[in-house]
């Protein structure tokens, strides 16, 4: 039996690849999320029009669109497992933490792929001033890590409830709020030329706190058949 260290690394890699292949085969999650992001973007920009002079409104709108796209799709990796009753198989081949890390990284890649499409469209549709790419990408990166960490943990919990995905938005919102607040504030600061250090530190601290908590909590998540 392989030692636990390297093998859980291999398990995470195997699970990540499986998640990507499942997503590629069914393509259900990505299509839904992209459609969701683009439609909510289009409707906001239609309603609000061009906002080149209001970085605070732009920052808020960008993150509302991204947050709701995330809320609509990040629970999917766990809900799919419980609906397909494949959680037993998962638990027999990997430790809870390895399962969670595999899915967390997948959710992270998922978020990035949504943003690759939504961000350029947003900047174009809303006529946003050119962003300070360094600061903006740093904020996006850290916010994505925190979002993925929080969403994966909450998804693992609600996937085992009666309503499954239905509860995800409401239950995860308080946990996602600090990420939303810091991301909006940071995005606004980068557009108005202010330093973004404080927001980056906050996002990093929250991501670390969540990851630390998850390492302790994932063992308690799957204990009954």
């Amino acid at each position, binding site marked *: 039996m392989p030692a636990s260290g390297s093998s859980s690394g291999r398990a995470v890699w195997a699970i990540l690849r499986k998640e990507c292949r499942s997503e590629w085969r069914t393509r259900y999650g990505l299509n839904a999320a992209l459609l969701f992001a683009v439609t909510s973007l289009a409707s906001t920009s239609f309603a609000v029009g061009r906002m080149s002079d209001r970085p605070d409104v732009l920052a808020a709108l960008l993150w509302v669109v991204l947050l709701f796209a995330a809320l609509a799709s990040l629970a999917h990796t766990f809900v799919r497992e419980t609906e397909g009753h494949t959680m037993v198989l998962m638990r027999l081949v990997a430790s809870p933490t390895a399962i969670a890390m595999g899915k967390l990284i997948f959710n992270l890649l998922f978020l990035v792929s949504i943003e690759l499409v939504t961000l350029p469209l947003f900047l174009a549709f809303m006529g946003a001033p050119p962003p300070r790419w360094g600061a903006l990408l740093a904020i996006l990166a850290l916010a994505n890590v925190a979002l993925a960490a929080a969403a994966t943990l909450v998804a693992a919990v609600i996937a085992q409830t009666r309503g499954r995905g239905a509860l995800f938005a409401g239950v995860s919102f308080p946990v996602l709020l600090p990420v939303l607040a810091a991301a909006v504030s940071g995005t606004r600061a980068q557009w108005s030329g202010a330093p973004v250090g404080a927001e980056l530190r906050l996002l990093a601290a929250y991501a670390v706190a969540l990851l630390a908590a998850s390492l302790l909590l994932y063992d308690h998540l799957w204990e009954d*058949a």
Partner: protein
Amino acid sequence: MEARALTHRYGHRPVLDQLSFAFQGPGVVAVRGPNGSGKSTLIRVLAGLLRTSGGETTLHVDGRATPSRNRQRWIGYAGPDLSFYPEFTALENLTFAAEARGLARPAERSRERLEKVGLAARGGERVHALSSGMAQRLRLAFALLDDPPLLLLDEPGNHLDDEGRQALATLIREEGTRRLVMIATNDEREGALAGQRVELGTRGLGDPA
């Protein structure tokens, strides 16, 4: 495989009550009892899928007690609640399982196991296209993936045709010589294969409130 004062309740219904035993592999053990007497519960507890309300189980491999936290490393489990990813083929499912467990030669190993349960020809088929009998064989292939010291089978004969049952019987007899095999079953033929037995109490579902 050793159990001490195992007790478990589903919500408020006592299913396992102060059950203790110790079985030495290799050999075949039948877990028998009426419906609802906790056969499946016991198998799931031994597989580390279910945390009991009381008591504990310890698996000794080569004389050393293994941590019950990652019990799944040491056992092969096949039960009705084990489902596979419908969007993947049988071979892909097994290969993924082998990779996740960090086993050597995952693809080759999976092909060997498919041959062993008579699914060699169906490896390329998507799981949702398999009949329930073939899906049951796939579960057996999964359980045998890394030659575990302990094999836990919950009603392995389900959905199998005669030819399938025949293959299952020879498989159990063969594996019984190499490792400890515990089978939860009410099927006479499977029960007959077992050298030892665990009779679960008659209290089960029939017990009046």
